[in-house]
């Protein structure tokens, strides 16, 4: 390797211009190649395979396969199960997003104002982020069990009666959303706290002298606008995470009752790995990826363009 480099160096000095430029280009490509290979094998190739699959009628274990064009996509658009899953997913995102962002901000402001006990609260709120959601889903299932769980017992004590959180179609998505918020809260809080500590103390003092009196006034005038970039980031990451909800559904409800908690990823999972409609699953995955792409695009665009203070 060293020998090659030295030889290249000498050659470069002897022959100016074209040849040296070519060698430099070659070296550049050489250095980038391992990373490119990794990206190609891990991301790009499977993605191409996925898109190709989505235009066929392949089923797992089938011996012959035909290209069917957009048939899978047409089927998806007309499929009531898929449309229900899409609706459920968006409903779930609509519940989790404001909850996880606003509560995250609220908790961050409260925890930030602590000095000595701050780390205790940070650890407590961050615990759900570090724990395995599948294990935690089981715990939630036990907590929410209408007859055996402590939540049910408390509600009975209050005279509300028995509430079947996970088997009542109108309650199951909100319940899953609460668990989703619980899981995301700590992460969002940490992001917001990073944003909060980046606001110079001088600004609060200047605002105090300028007549910004109450905590709410200070929050509206200084904190909230200066958290703009952080808030955008939190909103986008939260939407993507919420859009990808799967674990809790798979463990706690299996899409039930009667499909009322069936979300996009769970439908894909069922189609591809339970019913072995591999090609149809691939088409749904492509649609799913398009949505994620929109969210990521929004993130890239919004974060680069607006809400950026030098």
């Amino acid at each position, binding site marked *: 390797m060293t020998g090659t480099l030295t030889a290249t160096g000498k050659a470069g000095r002897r022959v100016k211009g074209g040849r040296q430029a070519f060698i430099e280009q070659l070296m550049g490509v050489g250095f980038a190649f391992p990373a490119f290979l990794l990206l190609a094998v891990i991301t790009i190739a499977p993605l191409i395979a996925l898109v190709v699959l989505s235009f066929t009628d392949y089923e797992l274990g089938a011996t012959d396969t035909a290209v069917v064009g957009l048939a899978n996509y047409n089927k998806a658009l007309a499929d009531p199960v898929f449309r229900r899953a899409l609706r459920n997913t968006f409903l779930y995102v609509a519940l989790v997003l404001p909850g996880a962002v606003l509560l995250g901000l609220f908790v961050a402001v409260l925890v930030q104002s602590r000095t000595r006990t701050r780390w205790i609260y940070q650890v407590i709120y961050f615990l759900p982020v570090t724990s395995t959601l599948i294990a935690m889903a089981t715990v939630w299932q036990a907590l929410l069990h209408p007859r055996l769980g402590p939540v049910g017992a408390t509600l009975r004590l209050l005279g509300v009666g028995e509430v079947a959180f996970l088997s009542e179609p109108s309650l199951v998505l909100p319940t899953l959303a609460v668990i989703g918020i619980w899981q995301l809260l700590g992460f969002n809080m940490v992001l917001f706290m990073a944003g909060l500590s980046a606001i*110079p103390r*001088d*600004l609060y*003092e*200047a*605002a*105090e*002298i*300028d*007549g*910004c*009196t*109450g905590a*709410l*006034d200070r929050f*509206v*005038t*200084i904190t909230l*606008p*200066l958290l*703009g970039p952080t808030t955008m980031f939190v909103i986008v990451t939260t939407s993507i995470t919420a859009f990808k909800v799967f674990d809790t559904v798979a463990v706690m409800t299996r899409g039930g009752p009667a499909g009322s908690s069936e979300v996009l990823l769970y439908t894909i999972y069922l189609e591809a790995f339970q019913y072995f409609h591999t090609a149809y699953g691939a088409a749904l995955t492509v649609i799913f990826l398009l949505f994620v792409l929109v969210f990521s695009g929004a993130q890239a665009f919004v974060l680069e363009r607006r809400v950026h*203070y*030098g």
Partner: protein
Amino acid sequence: MASVELSGISKAFGDTSVLNGIDLSIRDGEFLTLVGPSGCGKSTLIRIIAGLEAQDQGSVALGGTPVDGLRPHERRVAMVFQSYALYPHMTVRENIGLPLVLSRLRLWERVPVLRLLSRRRRRIMPEVDQEVEATARQLHIEELLDRRPAQLSGGQRQRVALGRAMVRKPRAFLMDEPLSNLDAKLRVHMRSELAELHKRLGATFVYVTHDQVEAMTMSDRIAMMDAGRILQLGTPSELYERPANVKVASFIGSPAINFLPGRVVDGGAVELFGHLLPTTVDLPAGSPLGIGVRPEAISLTGPDPSPASFAVSATLLRKENLGPEFILHLAVGDARIPVVARIAAGPTLPEVDERVGLMISRTGCHLFGPDGNRIEARPVDSAPLRSVRAFPVGERVSQ
């Protein structure tokens, strides 16, 4: 506009005492500078005046009325911060207008979207705009009104910060090292602009700096602070010409004052480099004295020494050319005591390592006792020049 009265202000952070019983009376319309080394408590003091920090003891009065219990904005003072503390998400117009908006509009009238419902806001905002524009005109920043702070240079930000302070017509301007973040050239320029602004507004300015040049050039009076106390309060000339303390003497003036080893001899006379100064002090013979000599009180001896001075021998170590004048670094006598002199440029300047005679003006000598405080020397009327010994210096003097 109002006077600022501080009486008995003390403040400690934990076990560290920062201010020890500060009494200071700042006149209405005065430009008073708090100057001192880092950690002397000057910033804490100005923050106490602003109400950002609460004093442990003592009282702050503005215009004769105590303001101790009042919140910062109720004291109606304005503050300019070293970092300028401009709101990065607001335009210059909004930055300058914020104090007015905050005092004239209710909270809900300032919340985005909701504020569109307020009819009062529609009436008030044009007035605010007018006042902001008038202020911007005074500072020559009209064309910057729609930019954000990130798009401004340091000097422009400084002006915006001043504008935000001026717009509400405060009773006093508090400035905490406002020029420290500017480059040297701009600082010189802003210095004269600030002094000019003070004259034009006729307002009370309380100015904190660690830069003695800023203090000397702009202030009506200077309060020199150290370790939570005011060492000396006076006009720039008083501090320069009659420093009350070794610390004041060495802090004020550039290049710094020279401290030479003097001594009290019999009858309270003061001896320096083998010469007697035309003064007497009330100290026992043999007491050591610090004798402060400004670099400009030293000159090179001509062939005929003036009777008001005395000459010692020195070696030139280094000279710095400042154009109209030279700063000479010299070693005096065999003891090679370092001395800095400021000499007008001329053709007869000595070369490095050359031996020269130095004349020290007798009236340019400040005496400081062992405790560091100034000793008021009694001039000896028409004292005849008594040369104890000419050269060499550094030996015991006998009369």
